[in-house]
């Protein structure tokens, strides 16, 4: 979900916006710590890369870290989509009822 949020947000993909997006879509309030732990793990795996902006007064003089999905991250997303589609295949008919 975090990877998808980074793709969706594009240039606005920084911690704060990612957390808001993921929390809104999952209808669950994720903590700042949980999101950053996940972002760090994804970056370590090579699915994301990040860059920092200059210091911003609204952040107490701290810089903002912006994220972008790498080619490896996009491959991981496509694989996850394919696996999810195959798992769901045949479970529900066209009317949305379980088969």
């Amino acid at each position, binding site marked *: 979900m975090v990877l998808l949020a980074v793709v969706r947000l594009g240039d606005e993909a920084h911690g704060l916006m990612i957390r808001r997006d993921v929390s809104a879509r999952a209808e669950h309030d994720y*903590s700042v710590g949980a999101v950053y732990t996940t972002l*760090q793990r994804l970056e370590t795996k090579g699915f994301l890369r990040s860059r920092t902006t200059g210091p911003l007064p609204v952040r107490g003089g*701290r810089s903002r870290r912006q994220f972008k999905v790498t080619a490896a991250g996009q491959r991981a997303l496509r694989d996850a989509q394919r696996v999810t589609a195959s798992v769901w295949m045949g479970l529900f008919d066209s009317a949305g009822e379980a088969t």
Partner: protein
Amino acid sequence: MTSVPRWTESILHGLGTDAGIREDLLGDLAEEFASRETTDGTVAARRWYYRESLRAIPHLVRDWRRHASPRDVRALAGAVIASLMFVLTVSVVLRLTVHGLVMLGVLPVSQLAPAAAWSIVGLLLAFNTAVIGGYAAARMYSQAPVVAAAALGATWSGFTIVALLIAPELPWGTRAFAIPMALMVATVGGGIARACRAPRLRTP
């Protein structure tokens, strides 16, 4: 715009996690705080900040643990042992001082219930010593002062629980858990006091 609660920020700083993730997290908290202050008011924004800071603590501690090298762990253990020795010395000196003052009549101890009075004096001394010990541990392990104070508190509480268990009479119930918990809170309080004082932790 009000500034974020500084002492809460110092506590998060004192958890010794990776500087990158720590600064990103603190920056996000500050930015969200500013946004919420505008829409919901200062009181609601502060309440949110405190709640989110509490929720961030387990992640930061896990991050410190993940990145801690064997050298860091040895340094932490050394700080805990050194501060335990320091605390023991302070405790003995304080108790001898109090006993001396009582014997000289400077410090009156109730003649009606001397055992109860001594228990209270003992608990107060232990609490003060715990705060000093937490401060000392935090000072000795400056890369993660709050973690060092918590480690000292956990070690000391563990010893206290063992001592209570092997005591001739077993004071189960409130006393069995209140004393170790009070020691834990006091040492962490000392560590937080140090984290808030350390000049390099003050944000611009």
